[in-house]
């Protein structure tokens, strides 16, 4: 931890998400000289959101590179560098601007290994803040989990807390596949307790494995990134009313850890997905579809009226939910009704 200059002056065990990402990158830059960071304002400015603070000072111009303003340009350059054997970390000031580079991410980074018959790997990391921030309007607030999560060839991770952030960025950098790391600007300044194992330079979180943040028996709540925090808050409120939520932090969008989710739903029979992205074709939509296609077939639907409704909410609503529970036997999937829920495009309700 002391490796990065100007680090938090908090007690050792609390680290902000920003510093966790910073540590992760610092450790990987130190470990492998092929790793380098490029993007707008990442060098002397310490990053637009200060995530790369101190790195340019420590590693210099060759490893921390400020680029001119062209996402398409520097993403392309990063992909080329990865193809030539380096291990770039390509930072988008926000993922909204990655749309200007999306051809490089999808057509070049994601598809090349396959299309070259396995000859040309692209070990690149695309990272940056994703999803909504505070009052930055539509063009700075989109969540790209569903867009990137749609594409074979890419791995997509979405950390929530500091431990996630450090473990996942390190795994992403060490992964030989192109990995998209969807951070969240509002989480950067939030401190979390850092478990002892996270302080190790070899602390990795496996890509493709979700984490159960809170055990519960009545309802499964699945989320990723900042909304995980909202879910835990909601779970605390519900717990006082006798509803125990099992909160799952996806950590990885692609490949999605359906085993963990399925096992939980089999246990609770109730599911809510929570995300900051839009509902149609979203992460929650995919989870619901897989539940429908998968384990729902293994369960016997007892009541002819069983309404298989899996609803998902906009993240801002979760704090207001009041669940009515204890309706059905363990063999049914049923809808959890939220008064005044603004479910968007689910056609069943």
């Amino acid at each position: 931890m002391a490796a990065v200059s100007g680090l938090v002056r908090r007690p050792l065990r609390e680290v902000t998400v920003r510093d966790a990402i910073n540590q992760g990158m610092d450790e990987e830059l130190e470990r492998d000289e092929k790793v380098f960071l490029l993007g707008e304002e990442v060098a002397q400015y310490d990053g637009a959101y200060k995530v790369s603070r101190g790195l340019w000072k420590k590693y210099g111009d060759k490893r921390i590179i400020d680029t001119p303003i062209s996402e398409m340009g520097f993403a392309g350059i990063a992909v080329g560098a990865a193809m030539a054997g380096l291990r770039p970390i390509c930072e988008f000031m926000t993922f909204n601007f990655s749309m200007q580079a999306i051809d490089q991410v999808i057509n070049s980074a994601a598809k090349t290994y396959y299309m070259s018959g396995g000859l040309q790997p692209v070990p690149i990391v695309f990272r940056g803040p994703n999803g909504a921030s505070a009052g930055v309007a539509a063009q700075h607030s989109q969540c790209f989990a569903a867009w990137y999560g749609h594409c074979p060839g890419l791995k997509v991770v979405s950390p929530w807390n500091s431990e996630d952030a450090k473990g996942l960025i390190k795994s992403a950098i060490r992964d030989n596949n192109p990995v998209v790391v969807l951070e969240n600007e509002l989480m950067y300044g939030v401190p979390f307790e850092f478990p002892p194992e996270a302080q190790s330079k070899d602390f990795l979180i496996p890509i493709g494995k979700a984490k159960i943040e809170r055990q519960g028996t009545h309802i499964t709540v699945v989320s990723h990134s900042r909304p995980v925090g909202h879910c835990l808050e909601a779970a605390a409120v519900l717990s006082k009313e006798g509803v125990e939520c099992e909160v799952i932090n996806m950590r990885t969008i692609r490949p999605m850890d359906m085993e963990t989710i399925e096992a939980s739903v089999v246990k609770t029979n109730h599911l809510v997905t929570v995300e900051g992205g839009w509902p149609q074709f979203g992460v929650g939509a995919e989870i619901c579809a897989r539940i429908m296609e998968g384990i729902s077939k293994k369960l016997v639907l007892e009541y002819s009226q069983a309404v298989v409704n899996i609803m998902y909410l906009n993240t801002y609503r979760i704090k207001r939910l009041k669940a009515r529970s204890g309706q059905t036997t363990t063999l049914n999937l049923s809808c959890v009704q939220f008064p005044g829920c603004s479910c968007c495009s689910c056609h069943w309700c």
Partner: protein
Amino acid sequence: MAVAIAAARVWWPNRGLSQAALLLLWRPGARGLARSHPHRQQQQFSSLDDKPQFPGASAEFIDKLEFIQPNVISGIPIYRVMDRQGQIINPSEDPHLPKEKVLKLYKSMTLLNTMDRILYESQRQGRISFYMTNYGEEGTHVGSAAALDNTDLVFGQYREAGVLMYRDYPLELFMAQCYGNISDLGKGRQMPVHYGCKERHFVTISSPLATQIPQAVGAAYAAKRANANRVVICYFGEGAASEGDAHAGFNFAATLECPIIFFCRNNGYAISTPTSEQYRGDGIAARGPGYGIMSIRVDGNDVFAVYNATKEARRRAVAENQPFLIEAMTYRIGHHSTSDDSSAYRSVDEVNYWDKQDHPISRLRHYLLSQGWWDEEQEKAWRKQSRKKVMEAFEQAERKPKPNPNLLFSDVYQEMPAQLRKQQESLARHLQTYGEHYPLEHFDK
């Protein structure tokens, strides 16, 4: 056409091309035979001449290996009319603007400056979420705006508020947008300084950089087709000019022959990235000729230089349907935005130089004083008055409520789809039951 030539060469290898083939190459331009684009005129073919016949370029042969050296030490010269003390250098370049117009230029710049100070402070105090000042670049805004017709379409980047100020956009509406209150034409949906005004032909500011460039070209193309006698002006910074969209925009404006003025504010910095890291060529003006675009570099802190260049560019762009590129050299005195602290990457001395020695407002003031059109008394009175106007608008803007939450759902499409209507109704029901948990008193009922 290239295929026809190739075919011709196969059939008549030693005889060059027939007259018929010649006609294939000679394409009259949009203006018929009028030629202000000499390079569009294809060479007449004569097989006996040892001249280049390549379709891709019109040039002579050379038998000496020589690379063209980019000239960045002595770049494209900077056109100016006034010196730093506001004195006209070459009287024949003096636009001789009438007193009212020059006063309007001055008052627009100073009112903008005053508004900037107040709104920047208001962000620091948490009253608005974000702000970007225009310090040092006011001359580029008003000089260019004054040279246009009021109906000319403006595509800005985000640091051109002076254009709106010159077009008499009321303080109330500037503030409304920054506060996102009920008077905001944009219904509170944008970050501050993302102004838009249909009435004043100012396209709503869009955050992603340089996307406005090809859009402006498209709009100019539409204006040409409509024979509208209208120019489109497209503002962008030297940093945004690095985006691929800028390249596409320039190239299309030239090939489609659009009446557009590309106005680049080269203010030295893109957030913290200095021009030395943004590009290695001779700025943006030097790129214009590469696309076949008439280009000029001007002193952006000289309102008259900006005015003259824009005026002439407008006249010719409309008359000849061709793009013009103006690179206005200036300096960003303020921080990039309220999210930036520029002392991290540049010296206070550097900023002070521009603030004190080469500022568009003071240069114009010197001119006004020397003309006898302004004096200290009026300066004092105007400062007081402009501050009062701004403070009044500011207080009013603070007091107004935010738009009704209903407006979350409108304008996604031209017609509201059933799903959104259901959500709108659902939110209304939700607020009826749980309204006390929300700060509804700040919102329009």
